[in-house]
């Protein structure tokens, strides 16, 4: 879908394919926080998040050619995998009920706030999520971090499916509008 792949992504992919160890370290240093943070957000479990982080980077190193920079940026691709693995983990582990309970509260607060990676931007995004009406926020968090389909979101929140779909779309739009107004591109 990306017309032009990101230059840095292309370079990193080539380095990984060549077996270049410094590139592996660079990729970990650059994307370790988003991968780990995503896994932690989904699982709420440090040990699980660390295991998932390890799996994600080991897999990337073993089969870097699977990453296609024409389809998605590396950051988004790694987050997607971390998220899916996290969702698999909670599905294997928890009962639906526990998942539902966990989902109905907001995601666990940040355990540490010391990393500097785009921290201002991060706060802006978190604020935009927090500014959403609660029903919108709940729907988005259930779908995104718990891996529920909109139909499952509807059942969980006891709302019509059409309403669940609308909240997901409308919630994302609101976040997007707020962030773009704050200069996100």
């Amino acid at each position, binding site marked *: *879908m990306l017309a032009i792949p990101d230059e840095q992504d292309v370079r990193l992919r080539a380095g990984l*394919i*060549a*077996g270049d*160890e410094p590139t*592996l*370290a660079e990729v*970990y*240093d650059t994307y*370790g*926080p*988003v991968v*780990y*943070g*995503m896994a932690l957000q989904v699982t709420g479990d*440090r040990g699980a*998040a*660390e295991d998932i*982080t*390890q799996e994600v*980077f*080991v897999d990337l*190193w*073993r*089969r870097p*050619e699977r990453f296609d920079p024409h389809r998605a940026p590396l*950051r*988004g691709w790694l*987050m997607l995998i971390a998220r899916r693995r996290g969702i698999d983990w909670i599905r294997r582990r928890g009962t639906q009920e526990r998942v539902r309970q966990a989902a109905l509260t907001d995601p666990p607060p940040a*355990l540490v706030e*010391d*990393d500097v*990676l*785009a921290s201002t*931007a*991060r706060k802006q*995004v*978190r604020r935009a999520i927090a500014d959403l009406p609660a029903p919108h926020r709940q729907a*988005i968090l259930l*779908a*995104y971090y718990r*891996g*529920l*389909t*909109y*139909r499952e*979101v509807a059942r969980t929140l006891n709302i019509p499916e*059409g309403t669940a*779909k*609308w*909240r*997901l*779309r*409308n919630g*994302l*739009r609101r*976040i*997007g509008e707020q*962030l773009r107004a704050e200069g*996100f591109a």
Partner: protein
Amino acid sequence: MTQPRHTGDLAGAYALEACPPDEERSVAEHLSHCPTCAAEATDLGRVAGWIGASSAQAPAADLRARVLSAALAARPAGRPRPDAEAGRLTGIYAAQVAELDRLLGRLSPAEWLLPSGPHRSVRDLVVHLRGSDAPVAAATGIARLESTSDAHLGWQRQAGAIVSALGDADSAVLAERVPLAGRTAVQRPLREALVQRGFETWIHAEDVRAVLAAPPRPPSAAQLADIVAFAVRLLPAAMVAAGREHPGSAVRLVLTGDGGGTQLVRLSPAPGSAVAAEVSMPAERFCRLLAGRLTSPLHSADVGGDRDVATDFLTVAATMGCD
């Protein structure tokens, strides 16, 4: 409910990967030809990405060493992923398979019974080719294929399975040692066996073209270069096996045209490579010579230096094919 023309409210669920699989597919299909919905999907997808990135958090410092050492244990540094190579080699092989398949499809029942290459009939040739492909098929772990008495179908199924199994093979698979066709005592990495499969498939396509009175068709420059490299690696040991080795001596092989280049070929596995003779010809002709398809191999090349050495070299080279 009828299928909505546009993505509508599904756009949000789609961006969050929250559609059931069937709806996800139909949305993706719609997006491929609706720029308006595609633009919204891109937009909302970006917002989802921002949400994801906002959970970024520095992992514990010791995780770095753990991850890097686990990665390096799974795949040592400095070892390029051969997948590009597996894809390339499989692609070359697949092209020859497709071409031979096409040629076989053109044969009349009577033509299937005509002699072809060194074989009594095209049918025998295809059965032979299938047998030659079998060790590679076995090494790739292809599940048992349905047996068939149809020679064309049997070969084609197995070849197709090899193509799909090896297109994205990883380093371990390509390095696995398999017996080479025609010289089962020689175990070589699968990547070389795959070059040999492409080589033999091309040569048999040429045999079938002769039956059809179709003009010959040289392989691509890349395939020619692969075949030459494959043979050059095997030649020193083949010289010994044929009792024609010249320890310490080498032939300077000058190949012209597509896939050409100059290289020293040692005339035994012993160290040393003093050039005793020079042999020059087009790379394509050299490949036909390797396959045993030249009627007078000794007169196929320009030869300089020690003629006896050159004769031994050309004689052994002409046995490198597999019927």
